[in-house]
């Protein structure tokens, strides 16, 4: 079982939003406030009816609804106009497996995309009995612009339009949330989750029976029978029925309140957060039911680099045959797990993926996961440069021209090194990202033009290559000298070189120091033309 796509409408900031998923690993990446976490929450909701660790029916809060939609609804009602009440709709479209009858029960054509496939729909909409109350409430100016959730109800149905319960579903979804943001309710929340995710139904029954037996045994203990005999005699005064003490055998004292998980004899909750995370994820991966969908939120939280590395190996080795949906803020995680599994969410609510990425580019980043691919993915515009000195010079030039550092305009200057340029550009081209490359000509214009052949005419993409075609100025330092007098540079660098050659030699020998001074100086200097073009 796997999910082909998820449609989300009216949930938090996601409206009319679709994310396509593959049957293995999906890495959801997006800037803050794009709704990464909401995507995961929505998927959990539609697969389990759970939100924030509770059944959604008891956890509807007004902030689940899309704020814009809500504001617009109230505004229209206050102008006494008719408007559709805000609602949340989440649909999970499953891949149709002809050999899975239990999945076929969820099949039908009742979905937004009019597809004929198995699927689930979760709706939070106004209860038909309360439509009028909601309309009146929203029209009344004295009420706050907040959805009165009392008028809302949850329905959970299959694409066959029949109500479903967890028991009807032939699969399970396990959510692993490693962020600190959510505090677990109750000390054994973790255990309950382990039990749900890892144990089979018959194992759960066994556990429950063993616990009952244990409790029953308590009242057979000689010490306890003696006490009960005593009570029976004494109790006569209070009641004419037989008074004894027993362990509570009712369902409200079930085993999950009395049993807790231990790691090396230490209660689980006392273990380090990092260890908790890792164990939690490992357990879910090793879960008894194979047909699981695994949802992982930001696995990099609480983990040291080496533990993260181990965990990522676990995920890529052991999840080969199941669907994993994961969010991350870490380029390392993205690169290591395969950048081709990316699902990029933009601020405008679109999603993009890297279908068609050359396998060797994916391998390149897997082997060299330190590259900051995420920065390229998340910035409005990127300028790729060869190294830290180019980065500093470009930043300063940008500030001189626009009055602010590039990042304040959403422009990221990323130093990637000449060898990785083309790898980055391949990603940028597939995602139609706005990218400029600032590169040395290294004294060989023909070689440079051959290397960037696909990008030079600039017709097909937002990628531009900026270089100076004078091979006498092969790198940054000669270019700085070309644009500025020796005197200017001497002043900035605090030197007194009498000829260009020694100045250049010093600059090239201390690239970063030199660039830092260029960056920090209060002097004005002229930007080399190819860089000036890149920061237009």
């Amino acid at each position: 079982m796997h999910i082909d796509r998820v449609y989300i409408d009216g949930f938090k900031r996601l409206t009319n939003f679709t994310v396509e998923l593959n049957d293995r690993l999906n890495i959801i990446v997006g800037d803050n406030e794009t709704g990464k976490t909401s995507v995961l929450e929505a998927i959990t909701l539609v697969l389990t009816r759970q939100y924030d660790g509770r059944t959604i029916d008891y956890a509807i809060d007004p902030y689940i609804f899309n704020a814009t939609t809500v504001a617009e609804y109230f505004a229209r009602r206050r102008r006494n106009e008719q408007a559709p009440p805000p609602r949340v709709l989440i649909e999970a479209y499953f891949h149709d497996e002809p050999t899975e009858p239990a999945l076929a029960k969820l099949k039908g054509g009742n979905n937004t995309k009019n597809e004929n496939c198995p699927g689930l729909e979760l709706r939070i909409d106004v209860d038909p009995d309360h439509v009028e109350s909601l309309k009146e409430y929203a029209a009344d100016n004295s009420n706050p612009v907040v959805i009165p959730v009392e008028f809302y109800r949850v329905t959970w149905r299959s694409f066959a339009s029949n109500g479903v319960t967890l028991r009807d579903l032939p699969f399970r979804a396990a959510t692993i949330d490693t962020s600190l943001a959510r505090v677990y309710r109750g000390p054994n929340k973790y255990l309950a989750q382990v039990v749900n995710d890892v144990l089979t139904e018959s194992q759960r029954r066994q556990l429950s029976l063993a616990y009952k037996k244990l409790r029953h045994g308590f009242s057979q203990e000689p010490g306890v029978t003696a006490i009960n005999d005593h009570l029976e005699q004494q109790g006569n005064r209070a009641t004419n029925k037989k008074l004894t003490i027993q362990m509570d055998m009712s369902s409200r004292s079930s085993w999950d309140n009395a049993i807790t998980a231990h790691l090396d004899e230490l209660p689980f909750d006392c273990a380090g957060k990092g260890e908790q995370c890792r164990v939690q994820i490992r357990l879910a991966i090793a879960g008894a039911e194979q047909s699981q969908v695994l949802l992982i939120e930001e696995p990099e939280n609480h983990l040291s680099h080496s533990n993260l590395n181990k965990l990522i190996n676990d995920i890529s080795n052991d999840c080969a045959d199941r669907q994993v949906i994961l969010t991350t803020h870490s380029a390392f995680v993205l690169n290591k797990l395969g950048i081709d599994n990316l699902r990029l969410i933009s601020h405008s609510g679109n999603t993009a993926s890297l279908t068609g990425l050359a396998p060797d580019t994916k391998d390149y980043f897997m082997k060299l996961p330190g590259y900051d691919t995420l920065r390229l993915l998340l910035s409005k515009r990127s300028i790729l440069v060869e190294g830290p000195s180019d980065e500093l010079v470009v930043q300063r030039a940008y500030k001189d021209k626009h009055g602010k550092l590039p990042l304040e305009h959403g422009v990221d200057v990323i130093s990637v090194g000449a060898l990785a340029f083309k790898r980055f550009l391949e990603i940028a081209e597939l995602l139609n990202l706005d990218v400029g490359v600032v590169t040395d000509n290294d004294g060989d214009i023909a070689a440079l033009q051959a290397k960037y052949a696909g990008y030079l005419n600039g017709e097909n993409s937002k990628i531009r290559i900026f270089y100076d075609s004078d091979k006498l100025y092969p790198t940054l330092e000669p270019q700085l000298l070309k644009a500025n007098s020796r005197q200017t540079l001497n002043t900035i660098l605090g030197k007194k070189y009498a000829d260009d050659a020694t100045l250049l030699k010093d600059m090239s020998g201390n690239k970063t120091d030199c660039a830092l001074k260029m960056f920090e100086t209060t002097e004005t200097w002229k930007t080399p033309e190819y860089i000036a073009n890149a920061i237009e």
Partner: protein
Amino acid sequence: MPSSENKIIIACAGSGKTTRLVTEALANRDRRIAFVTYTNNNIREIIKRFSELNSGVPKHVDVVTWFGFLLRECARPYQRSKYAEKRIESLLFVNGQSAKYIKETDTKRHYFANGELIYSDKIAKFVVECENRSSQRVTARLRQIYTDVFIDEFQDLAGWDLEFAKMLLQSGIRVMLVGDPRQHIYSTNPSSKNKQYLGIEIVKLLEIWKKDGLCTLEPMSGTHRCNAAICEYANALWPGMDAMKSLGNDTTDHDGVFLVAENAVNDYIKRHSPQVLRYDKRAATYGCEALNFGLAKGLEFGRVLIVPTGPIKKYLQSGTLSHVKASRDKLHVAVTRARHSVAFVFDGQSPIVPTRFSP
């Protein structure tokens, strides 16, 4: 290509058809079976039988009601191919024809009350329409879920239900229909569609289906319940049908079919303690708990005492079948409830029941 694996079993009263279906379901654990029947009483009966033979309904069998099956597995999944305005929330049970004067073209009002409750007499028609308009997706989906559909009490199907049954017979799913056309009591569907096949006439349709290669027909004529004399009386009601044959041979001091004079009824009840059966509540019950003919369906008693209606009296008097044309099914049900004896409260003479109870 129609499947010759489909089977229609014409099972007489007391033939053990429910047991047969349950046994068949239990013997085929590699298949996935929808076990469909009309009333909640039948559902209980089937579940009880599964409990006796298997300590419960096994995982590969879903026991569902006729309308539940139609609504959940047939009408809703592709309802949008016919009607997309609102979800079909539920059924509205109607006696007689719903929305009689609303044309088919007005889908919303022809099929639905309130736009969301589908009329019970039209749901099968709606399903057939969905099937046709969705390139057979309804049956394609069912094929993914079930290998077999068992339908119990098929004699209660009428109107568009029969078209739906035919759709299933052609779907590639193995269909088994079991029932007794002589015990037609309820109708799932009072529509004018297929009204020539109502009641016993359904046999003609079964023959057509057989001829078209849609199914094979198999009689189950042996009854474990009724003795030979009762079978003989019941068979006389149905010339041309496969005769019921008694398989039991335990005897009592009072076996067969009898007449009881009005003034001897109390003595008879005292002597033999029969279950009193009546056509409806207008009939006298002689101080006993009486059951209507219809409600007695599916039940079994050692002895029954039947309070005859006017037409049944005429039939007793003359032996002419045309008198019970309208009530023949119910009379048949009443008679075939008994293992040992059937008695009619009747003062006159009867060519078909010669023996009179004498106190």
